[in-house]
């Protein structure tokens, strides 16, 4: 390759700074485009959600899949999160004889933060990935087009039940996480470490307010809506065969997981 003698007619090669700026610009442009796409889809979903025919059967199938189907893994995550948190905070509080604070610490962390974040992450992994792959496969095998040619709106038939299921079921799963997480904490603090049950419960009641639980539920609803919307958006717009569906699912998983943590901060700030 004798590229040393460049023709004066060729444009100069872009320098590293130019390439870097171009990269950032493309990234920002794609990000804004995706946010716009998500918002447009959200508006579309809301518009079709309030129009008959109401597809109750499809909605219940998705509530079952997203919610009931996730109870076990969300519950298990809850129990062990509570146990781990109680174990670690016991070690810390033990240093200055404040073990009675284990109960409030565990319950506040779980209700406000751990339950919505972990429940949403579990739903993303289990239901979000399946949603995205299923919709993506339907898109690339023209099943979505087929629905449309049969005068059935695919947004209403496929996306509305899935997005509503995320919105409704993640807060429900947060409640289960709350109960089982606190039970896990109770088990470690009271049964394993020997704290008195009365102290654990009384201290928890003293510190834990209904607002803390509500904060977790609101976060759960926001995350549930978000992860279902991202999975639907990526799957619905997939293209390029099996490889394209795989790519869409990876992107959906990454965007969901990152989005949960980013939204967690902003929802927290707005609620206080």
């Amino acid at each position, binding site marked *: 390759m004798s590229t040393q003698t460049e023709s004066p007619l060729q444009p100069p090669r872009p320098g590293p700074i130019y390439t870097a700026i171009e990269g950032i610009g493309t990234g920002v442009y794609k990000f804004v485009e995706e946010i716009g796409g998500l918002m447009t889809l959200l508006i579309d979903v809301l518009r079709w959600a309030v129009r008959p025919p109401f597809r109750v059967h499809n909605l219940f199938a998705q509530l079952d899949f997203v919610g009931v189907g996730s109870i076990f893994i969300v519950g298990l995550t809850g129990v062990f999160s509570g146990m781990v948190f109680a174990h670690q905070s016991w070690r810390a509080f033990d240093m200055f004889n404040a073990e009675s604070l284990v109960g409030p610490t565990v319950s506040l962390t779980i209700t406000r933060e751990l339950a919505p974040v972990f429940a949403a992450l579990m739903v993303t992994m289990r239901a979000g990935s399946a949603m995205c792959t299923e919709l993506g*496969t*339907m898109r690339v*095998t*023209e*099943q979505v*087009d*087929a629905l*449309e*040619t*049969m*005068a*059935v*709106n695919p947004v209403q038939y496929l996306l509305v039940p899935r997005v509503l299921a995320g919105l409704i079921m993640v807060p429900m799963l947060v409640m289960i996480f709350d109960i089982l997480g606190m039970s896990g904490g109770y088990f470690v603090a009271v049964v394993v470490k020997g704290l008195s049950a009365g102290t654990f419960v009384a201290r928890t009641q003293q510190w834990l307010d209904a607002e803390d639980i509500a904060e977790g539920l609101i976060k759960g609803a926001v995350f549930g809506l978000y992860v279902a919307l991202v999975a639907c958006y990526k799957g619905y717009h997939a293209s390029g065969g099996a490889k394209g569906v795989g790519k869409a699912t990876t992107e959906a998983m990454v965007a969901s997981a990152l989005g949960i943590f980013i939204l967690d901060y902003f929802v927290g700030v707005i609620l206080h």
Partner: protein
Amino acid sequence: MAGRATAAANAPPMIQVIGLHKSFGDHKVLTGINLEVPAGSTLVILGGSGSGKTVLMKHMIGLLKPDEGQVIVDGEDIVPFGPEALERVRRKFGMVFQAAALFDSMNVFENVSFPLREHRKELSEDEMRALVREKLAIVGLKNVEEKYPADLSGGMRKRVGLARAIVLDPKIVLYDEPTTGLDPITTDYVDEMILDAKRELGVTSVVISHDIASAFKVADNIAFLSQGLIVDQGHPSKLRHSEHPAVKVFLSTWFGKN
């Protein structure tokens, strides 16, 4: 054949495409398409891969909006229509997809009865079963209702796809590459099926294809699409002797150089 074409030529057009332009970004796919499909006739749109056949078909059923031009279906220009009006128009159509596009989460009965459940809610379960069985018989299938698409061969899937497309007795049936990827015997069967659907149900059909033999068998009219334009169209016997170089080259692959 000639009688068929004359009868068709006198019928009013079921689909009319006027001055249709469509680009995707900088890529011009269709550059001024004019077409007419007389009611009750079969039009085959012939062309090589990437000539814009599928894009043209998607405009006819309103899956794509043109940049310019009109698409008139059964007397109505569907281009300005919103989703609700398009749904009404689409009930006049049945579409058979290249890979059948059956819902793989549903069995054959559920697939074929899907349009009935959506648009003929007054039917009882027994009436639906009877209708599904009748349409499956038209495409030459029986005792497959409980099977899933994954358990069927390519040709059978295509036939189930046609049964689903005709279950609501549409006025128009669109076929997207119906014989692609099929063996010669199944191809012949699918051609017969297209002719049967036309004879028995009186439907207007549009077939997009690059299969010359099958096109000449089923068509009342053939339109040849090349580089975004219909370069020649008419009765198969006319197209067979077309002077247009693109048509000549394409047909010579089947009929030989002379």
